[in-house]
């Protein structure tokens, strides 16, 4: 399940690559601690599940997964526990990147390899390596796609169903979206925020559809909440617009492929970042590098690509998309 396995990054480290043999060969045993926010929505649940599945593929990796939490204080203490425990590496998807920075620094000082996933720390010294989705890029991709589809329609109404509004990543996505729309003279006419869950998506969309009697395009940040969004749309009996998803679930891709629904596209935001983090942690600890790079060390930062999946290219992404 790897929506995010874009050729640029993962194929090279993936099991199909020629160099993988060297990299995948069992090496020194690596103990990895993994901590992430509470699995209060599908994408986040998929993150931990993928990380766990990845670790199981390696006989030399022992993964410690702790209770997902949105309480920064608790997450800090989890990392402290990993430090006390002298794990080799920590893969950390922080609830709040800035808030977890001090403890990540502490871990690095203690000689532990920290891999930062998805939400960035605010110090370059806090992680050995960072895997980021391109949140701003997601917004730009979605906005650009809207511009293309609504080509020339200057009075078009665009709506946005954002995710958890207090997360920086949501703000980045919205900013990218607004910036891209501005390029073609459009703007976000109606915006609501949900909580990445199906239920919140339904609720937000139901209200949104009342707020906007006519819409031409809707971008929904997250395909999990998108199930609820679709339910609300179906219920309203409306359909004068098209829908763009986010994150890239198998569900939505199937709908795009069949071309029988309102979803015309989705913007991938890989739920495999955690899994990538596990691999990177292992490689970094074992002193290996990314196979297809000439470079002998694991890179400092990997920013994943946020491609737009449409009917035309869906076959390429569907096999690795995550199930909601």
């Amino acid at each position, binding site marked *: 399940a790897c929506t995010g396995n874009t050729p640029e990054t993962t194929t090279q480290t993936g099991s199909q690559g020629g160099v993988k043999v060297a990299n995948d060969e069992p090496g020194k045993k690596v103990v990895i601690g993994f901590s992430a926010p509470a699995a209060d*929505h*599908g994408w986040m649940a998929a993150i931990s599940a993928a990380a766990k599945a990845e670790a199981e593929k390696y006989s030399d990796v022992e993964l410690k997964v702790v209770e997902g939490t949105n309480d920064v204080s608790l997450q800090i203490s989890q990392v402290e526990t990993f430090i006390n425990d002298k794990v080799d590496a920590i893969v950390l998807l922080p609830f709040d990147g800035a808030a977890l920075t001090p403890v990540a620094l502490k871990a690095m000082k203690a000689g532990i390899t920290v891999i930062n996933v998805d939400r960035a720390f605010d110090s370059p010294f806090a992680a050995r390596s960072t895997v980021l989705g391109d949140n701003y890029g997601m917004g730009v991709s979605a906005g650009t796609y809207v511009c293309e589809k609504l080509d020339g329609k200057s009075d078009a109404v665009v709506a946005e169903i954002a995710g958890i*509004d*207090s997360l920086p990543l949501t703000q980045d996505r919205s900013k990218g979206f607004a910036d891209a729309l501005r390029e073609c003279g459009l703007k976000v006419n109606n915006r609501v925020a949900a909580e990445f869950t199906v239920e919140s*998506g339904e609720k937000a969309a*139901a*209200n949104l559809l009342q*707020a906007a009697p006519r819409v031409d395009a809707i971008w929904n940040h997250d395909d*999990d909440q998108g199930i609820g969004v679709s339910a609300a749309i179906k219920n309203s009996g409306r359909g004068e617009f098209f829908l763009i998803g986010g994150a890239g679930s198998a569900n939505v891709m199937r709908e795009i492929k069949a071309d029988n629904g309102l979803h015309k596209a989705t913007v991938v935001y890989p739920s495999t970042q955690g899994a990538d983090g596990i691999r990177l942690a292992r490689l970094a600890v074992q002193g290996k590098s990314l196979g297809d790079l000439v470079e002998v060390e694991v890179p400092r930062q990997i920013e994943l690509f946020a491609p737009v999946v449409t009917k035309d290219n869906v076959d390429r992404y569907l096999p690795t998309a995550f199930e*909601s």
Partner: protein
Amino acid sequence: MNENTATAAVAPTSGPPDGGRARRAVTGLLGSAAGRNTGLVVALVLLCVVGVITAGDRFADVDNLLTILRLASVIGVVSVGMTFVITGGGIDLSVGAIVALSSVWATTLATQAVARDFHWLSLVFTALAVGAGCGVVNGVLIAYGRIVAFIATLAMLAAARGLAEIMSNRKTQIVDVPGFTAFFDASVFGVPVLVIIFVLVAVVGWVVLNRTTFGRRTYAVGGNPEAARLAGINVRRHTVLLYTLLGVCCGIAAILLIARTTTGSATHGGLYELDAIAAVVIGGTLLSGGRGTIAGTVFGVLIFTTLSNVFTLNNLSISAQAVAKGAIIVIAVLLQQRLARRGDS
């Protein structure tokens, strides 16, 4: 103050002793709705006025009002059940988790297969049974295990959500039982089935709380458990029944939610406990037990859902909404108090 006294307060004559029950029930319902809840009604009306002024036709639109009602229905059903538990002197923090577990259990592949092969009602029964089961566990822990309700249901909150996650493997389970979807997507004379179910639950809740021995005893158990015991009421059994009733309401809510979102999920019902308790308390039910009103609860639910609708129609930021929400809650309650007090004297 319960709804009966409310009636008395509105029409101080103590009424002909032989008056028809149905008529009195209706006067009681309306009397209490208009009388005791004046403040809530005024708050709701004010909200609607603001809605009309700021969003015009988009607010007053029938579709929009139905949207509000549909959103109100899920949390509304839970809140009606919560009114019983709180009136009976308890509290339940696990309602959201029970909704989640019921929704997941009712939408597992196995249940759905049975539902398709047999009858979609089996899905409904599963949700109700799971809800009732959790309610029984809550009730037994509280009444017989003598664990404080807050703690017992907190434990249930953790356990039921964990179980829902394990069952669903933290995946969203999509419903594919045509009969089920068809039934709940329908409307009767333009009114969605979901809304009809909410109205039914509220009316039945009102009748049970105000017109049955069970309801009278609920007030007694919540108001003065020792007096209730001395009056020969089996307080423990009654407590178990109250939590079971709420559990069943959670099961119903799960069904409505499955219908609304076409999914079952361990993330369903997030923070329902706070929303439901807030609606109940703003409606005038005493958190300490002994006084409760279904009509007030329904107003409480409507106020909260209308609030978020009006905000959304106006494209306000979530943060501004939150600040305004705080202010509006305070104003609504102060209004309710002042008006209720004036109505008293």
